């Protein structure tokens, strides 16, 4: 509390409350982080602009002209640009849904095991292993899928088709024989393995955040572990699980290589997930046609990419929204 006149004299403004030494670094950091934030927006805008500009010629061209110029667009066969986009979005969503239906319960099971059942050491090891799954390149999944998984699954598909074939989903090809496993179901299964890590990682984090108070409340009234999970963990984590699932869906929607290598593609709106030549994904189709496409063909493919971009954006925004709602009805009161 003893300020001498000489110490104030060294300040240029002549008072004690001028610029402090950290101001510069603070300013620089603010600039850098703002720049990073702006950069990502600019990149996104640039991608969107690129897609729009490149796809524009395909959008404004008449279906007939497009059919003439682009080898894979055949309006006369019910495969105009818009129809193809429809088939592809259907196929993409179908395979992603198969993946979700398979991956979500398994992921939640694994996450629950890690967060609430496994001994600490085992839980950690398992966590690392699951994260490792996320690091495997999708080509490897594709190769493994074609070489190992598809032949392995064939008898199961035959079984499904034999006994549940009356459900259109599991209908066998005309001959009644599952002659190939390179179908939407296999692609869905491989996608499920690929999205497992992200769903597991996110749900695990959410499960671990369940307030101990709520878990103890359930346990103290004589709940078993599973009852405790149902009473306190799941209600608390519900939005987090939804968000995790959406993130997984986002990944499944954009996956190319694995699907491409596994599926025998086709363009239909059929529900037959055990039959080949029925479905394809947007990303897979683009990869199939891009190498041989001419200018207008590339435009058309970019238009399909734009459709995927929009869907993925919507799914991710939905996921964000669901996750953000978590804070409002979380049990942390």
């Amino acid at each position, binding site marked *: 509390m003893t300020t001498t006149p000489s110490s104030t004299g060294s300040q240029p403004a002549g008072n004690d409350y001028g610029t402090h030494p950290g101001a510069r670094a603070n*300013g620089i950091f603010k*600039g850098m982080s*703002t*720049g990073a934030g*702006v950069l990502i*927006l*600019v*990149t996104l*805008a*640039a*991608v969107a*602009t*690129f897609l729009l*500009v*490149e796809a524009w010629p395909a959008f404004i061209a008449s279906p007939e002209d497009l059919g003439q110029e682009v*080898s*894979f667009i*055949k309006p006369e*066969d019910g495969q105009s640009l818009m129809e193809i986009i429809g088939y592809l979005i259907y196929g993409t969503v179908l395979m992603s849904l198969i993946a979700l239906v398979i991956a979500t319960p398994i992921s939640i099971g694994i996450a629950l095991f890690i967060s609430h059942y496994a001994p600490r050491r085992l839980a950690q090891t398992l966590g690392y292993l699951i994260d490792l799954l996320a690091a495997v390149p999708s080509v490897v999944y594709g190769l493994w899928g*074609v070489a190992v998984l598809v*032949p392995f699954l064939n008898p199961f598909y035959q079984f499904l088709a034999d006994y549940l074939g009356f459900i259109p989903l599991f209908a066998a*090809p*005309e*001959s009644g*024989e599952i*002659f*190939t496993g*390179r179908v939407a179901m296999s692609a869905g299964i491989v996608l499920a393995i690929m999205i497992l890590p992200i769903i597991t990682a996110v749900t695990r984090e959410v499960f671990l955040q369940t307030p101990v108070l709520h878990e103890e409340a359930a346990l103290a009234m004589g709940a078993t572990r599973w009852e405790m999970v149902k009473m306190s963990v799941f209600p608390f984590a519900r939005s987090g699980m939804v968000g995790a699932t959406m993130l997984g869906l986002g990944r499944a929607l954009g996956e190319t290589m694995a699907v*491409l*290598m596994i599926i*025998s*593609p*086709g*363009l*239909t709106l059929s529900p037959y997930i055990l039959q*080949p*030549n029925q479905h394809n994904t947007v990303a897979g189709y683009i*990869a*199939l*046609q*891009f*190498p*041989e*496409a*001419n*200018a207008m*063909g*590339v435009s058309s493919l970019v238009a399909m990419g734009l459709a995927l971009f929009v869907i993925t954006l919507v799914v991710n925004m939905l996921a964000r929204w669901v996750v953000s709602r978590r804070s409002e009805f979380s049990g942390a009161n």
Partner: protein
Amino acid sequence: MTFKIRVGATATAATVAVLLAACTPTNEAALEASQVESDLAGNLQGAGSSAQEAGMDAWRAAFQSNNPDVNVGYDPVGSGGGIEQFLSGAVPFAGSDGLLSDEEYEIAADRCAGDGGAYHLPMYISPVAVIFNIPGVESLNMDAITIAEIFNGDISSWDDEAIAAQNEGVDLPAQTITVVPRSDSSGTTENFTDYLEQAAGDAWPHEASKEFPATDAQRVGGDGTSAQIDQIRSSEYSVGYADASRSGGLGTAALKVGDEYVPFSPEAAANIVAASPVMDNANGENDLAYAIDRTTTDASAYPLTLVSYHIVCSEYTDPNERELLTEFEKFVASADGQNVAAAAAGSAPLTAELSDRITAIVDEIASN
């Protein structure tokens, strides 16, 4: 200290968009000519068909070792992309499995120096084999109609009468046929479907296309030749079509030409080109744009053959570019060039006549 973020952001967005659009992998480092051992020096860049990529790799390697100061690059972006780059002047030549349209001919006339427009030079000839996996059967005779009916799903079993009638003495199994086409866009598919469209008549109710049509056959597609071949190898009683050089170990079909059954061979493949007429809309007599005659009755020719061209200008203004290009193309058309491609890619060497004819055309370009 104030960032003009708004202005900057818009400008950057535009720049990034342009960069993305322009960002195709075309540039290989230009080598500075340091020692002069041969007369030729510089950088020659082409782009186009991936069907001839293996051949192109062999030509580039051999040509560069003959001319150490030359660098030849080839971007296998596909025929369409190659023509596009050629027409925009980005590359001096394109590799293409297909022919220029009338419209593209006109653009080429503007793009090329002088009034001569562009020429097609058939450099890479490769027979396409109909391949199958039937244990114990190495060869089958088939006419185009039978092949069309198999791939269209009208014939679904190997012991079908139509196949048996052409293959007396062969023990054909009563097994369902699985058709394995390419699932990606490909010049091979286009050639195959063009053959069926022309030679099989009503039995093939589809148009020639780079995409295999959705036929009623029991079908499994493969993405790319390797995946397709793997699929055929791994599933018995399947049938497909692929570049003949990839048919090893699988059964192959001899096609009915006239009254005989012709198995694929380099000579027969080269002969079909020689036996085919040039397109009506070809750009003068130097433009070797062949309309492959799939319906030929000449039993020395194999009609299911892929021809991949180099599309070049009749005149070039830059003398260095002209010299590089013509020297390279002369090498490609020469017996040496054709043989290195045959060894590396399994293509069929040009007939001597055609080789001489191309050399003459290239010489003419060189003197323009």
